[in-house]
């Protein structure tokens, strides 16, 4: 889980004004959002339309990203595939975060026995590193977009759970929680007004960082033939199709992959930027 230690503060402690990198990331994020919600604005064509005569064209003026083996315009497919990938990324992150919050909260609030049990459970899950848990899930329930999404969510859940549990423990024993007890607050009041808000605060940033990771993993599964299948305009699927033609038509793999990278980088930069801002609030 890359999110684990990426929330490092800006070292000087001073709030930085949005720089070039943040601005670029913001623009990219805007582009991606538009592509996801209303792709026709950015790419008016039909992503599934076949033009066999125009197959395997390298990037040129008519087809900015080239065409694939069935003559479909890659630029159009990449733009229309944004929705697919973003939805999968959001869904997988939501599953992972949701499970992680549940597990982490259970461990942190219900006493030592539950904490021990959940910890052991998490330890076991960590013994299936990275994609392996997802692959195990897929071998049980079969390949497909839905399965792949759930699989990625499950794989990321232990990482989130560990972070949230650690945060909960830190907050629970913080001085301001004791001060609230001294002021006469009940345990419920302290939980609702102090512990939960402070624990869940970093979640937003975690999620943003995690979306990039989730999109990459989902695309990887598609690439390996276990997720979305062609002719779906999902980026990973496009890469999978392009695999066979890598030597003759490199652009079929390059551009979808580029967009995956850009999305992941954008999510990371935005996440860190928000994190920095929140530390100085």
């Amino acid at each position, binding site marked *: 889980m890359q999110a684990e230690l990426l929330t490092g503060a800006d070292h000087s402690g001073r709030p930085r004004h949005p720089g070039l990198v943040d601005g670029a990331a913001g623009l990219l994020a805007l582009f991606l959002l538009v592509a996801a919600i209303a792709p026709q604005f950015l790419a008016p064509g039909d992503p599934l339309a076949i033009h066999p005569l125009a197959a395997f064209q390298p990037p040129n003026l008519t087809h900015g990203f080239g065409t694939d083996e069935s003559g479909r315009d890659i630029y159009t497919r990449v733009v229309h595939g944004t929705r697919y990938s973003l939805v999968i990324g959001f869904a997988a992150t939501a599953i992972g975060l949701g499970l992680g919050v549940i597990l982490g909260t259970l461990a942190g609030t219900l006493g030592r026995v539950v904490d021990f049990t959940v910890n052991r459970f998490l330890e076991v899950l960590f013994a299936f590193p990275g994609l392996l848990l997802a692959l195990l899930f897929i071998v049980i329930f079969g390949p497909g977009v839905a399965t792949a999404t759930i699989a990625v969510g499950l794989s990321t859940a232990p990482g989130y759970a560990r972070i949230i549990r650690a945060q909960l423990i830190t907050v629970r024993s*913080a*001085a*301001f929680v*004791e*001060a*609230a*007890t*001294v*002021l*006469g607050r*009940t345990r419920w009041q302290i939980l609702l*007004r*102090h512990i939960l*808000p*402070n624990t869940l*605060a970093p979640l937003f940033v975690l999620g943003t960082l995690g979306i990039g990771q989730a999109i990459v993993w989902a695309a990887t599964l598609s690439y390996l033939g276990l997720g979305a299948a062609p002719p779906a305009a999902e980026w990973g699927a496009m890469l999978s199709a392009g695999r066979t033609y890598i030597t003759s038509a490199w652009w079929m793999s390059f551009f979808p992959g580029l967009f995956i990278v850009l999305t992941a980088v954008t999510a990371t930069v935005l996440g860190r930027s928000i994190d920095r801002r929140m530390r100085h*609030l």
Partner: protein
Amino acid sequence: MSNRAAGSAPAAVSVRNLRVGFGAAEPVVRGVSFSIAPGECLAIVGESGSGKSVTARSMLGLAGANAHVSADRLELDGQSVLDLNDRAWRARRGKDVGLVLQDALVSLDPLRPIGREIADSLRLHTSLGAAARARRVLELLDAVGLPSPELQVRKLAGQLSGGERQRALIAAAIAVNPPLLIADEPTTALDVTVQAQILELLEQITNGGTAVLLISHDLAVVSRIAHRVAVMHEGRLVETGRTEQVLWSPREDPTRRMVAAIPADKPRGTRLTPTDRAGTPDRPGTSTAIPAPIPGTSSVVLEAIGLSKSFRRPDGSRQCAVDDVSFELHRGSTLGIVGESGSGKTTTARLLLALQAPEQGEVRVFGRPWSAAPEKTRRALRASIGAIYQDALGSFDPRWSVADILADALGVRHQRRALQADTRLTSLLDEVGLAASALQRRPLELSGGQRQRVGIARALAGRPDILICDEPVSSLDVSVQAQVLDLLDDVQRERGLSLVFISHDLGVIHHVSDQVAVMRAGHIVERGPASRVFAAPQHPYSAQLFAALPRLSL
């Protein structure tokens, strides 16, 4: 430590008109001049931000990456060090001047054995072989008074006690016998008794012929060993002279304020600052009379009876933190609990606040069960006991503003927009000497003293009768400390509060307490009226503790 012939050698350091600035901002050091002869100890005293640390670091060329240093004269051991390049500086550092920082736990590399740290200077500045260096390290550790050096050499800083590692740090600084030793707050992180030992060590070093530049915010500490004192204020040395003269007949205002702010030897009720709580000048000291008890009620508001609590150590054995502790707090008075680290005073505070339950004994409030009562019953009483903490910032919810904190303590909702018109909030702020504009701020944006004032305001919001103060001024500058102590005094008198004041700082305890209890290793070794205990301590430990107290009376 060699013996230099004092008087014939050049001044160990000579500075004239030193100016240091960072970037385009105002210079931090504005024309500082001094010199130190071999075998002499000069102390530069000032508050944080006065520029004293930057001055000290400039003697080593380590003022900072983007520091602009200029002077008419800057000489170490007779040779100018102005405009030296990096390489030339590196040859001087360690050899012509040594540096001792505060808190050896972080000033020595925590991952390296202390033997290696000490041998560094030898490696860099001498041509001694490894075996010769090892021998010299043992000699140095012996010279600084570290027992069994052969056993300690391989240890990490974290495995030694506070005093031992500070000695090791000093050994590292004097390894190649520099003519000048700069000690920047060398005793701040230490217990009082250990502090006295380290000061003694520095005195030995001075007597051996080394010139010592001692930087501190604490006049009382430096008065022990400094021959001369220079007071630094806003980048300038406002007064320099022999120690007795500066302390007993200060000429300048900043010096006078610093001397006045020292709490030791000033009985309760004496004002430490010439201003009133908001910082505006002049309000004469008022009576120290303790309010008479209301007839028909006992004057005991808080009572600890035979408290005991122990903890489990990491290796499974039990450690007794508090053992059979008993005391009484009378209405309107202040009970001071003093002890060094590990004495159990923090645990006592937590027991008093019912944050933990005692294993034996109980705490009673207004004669009613407190520690023995269930939390539900206790909660109703909690409003009558307030608390202020050493780490004010940590005691506030990091997401809340000052207005949020106070409104929550008052139990009211507040309007986000018309904050300054909310008299409930502004009157609280007024009472602790803060302007209404503080309401929108977050504690992070406030200074240490302001944060503590907010903490006091929050504690007062519930209209308590008792206030438990756990090291409330320990992390504050002496002058800010004086303001906060005066504020507590004012508030106590106006509201008729009874205070339990816990601290390791003897001077502060001496100033604030009516009754004092001395703690050691979980026991109360002595108890009684402050004036009597301090003047004539009966238990040997108390006597030892008070003897170590740095006082202005030389």
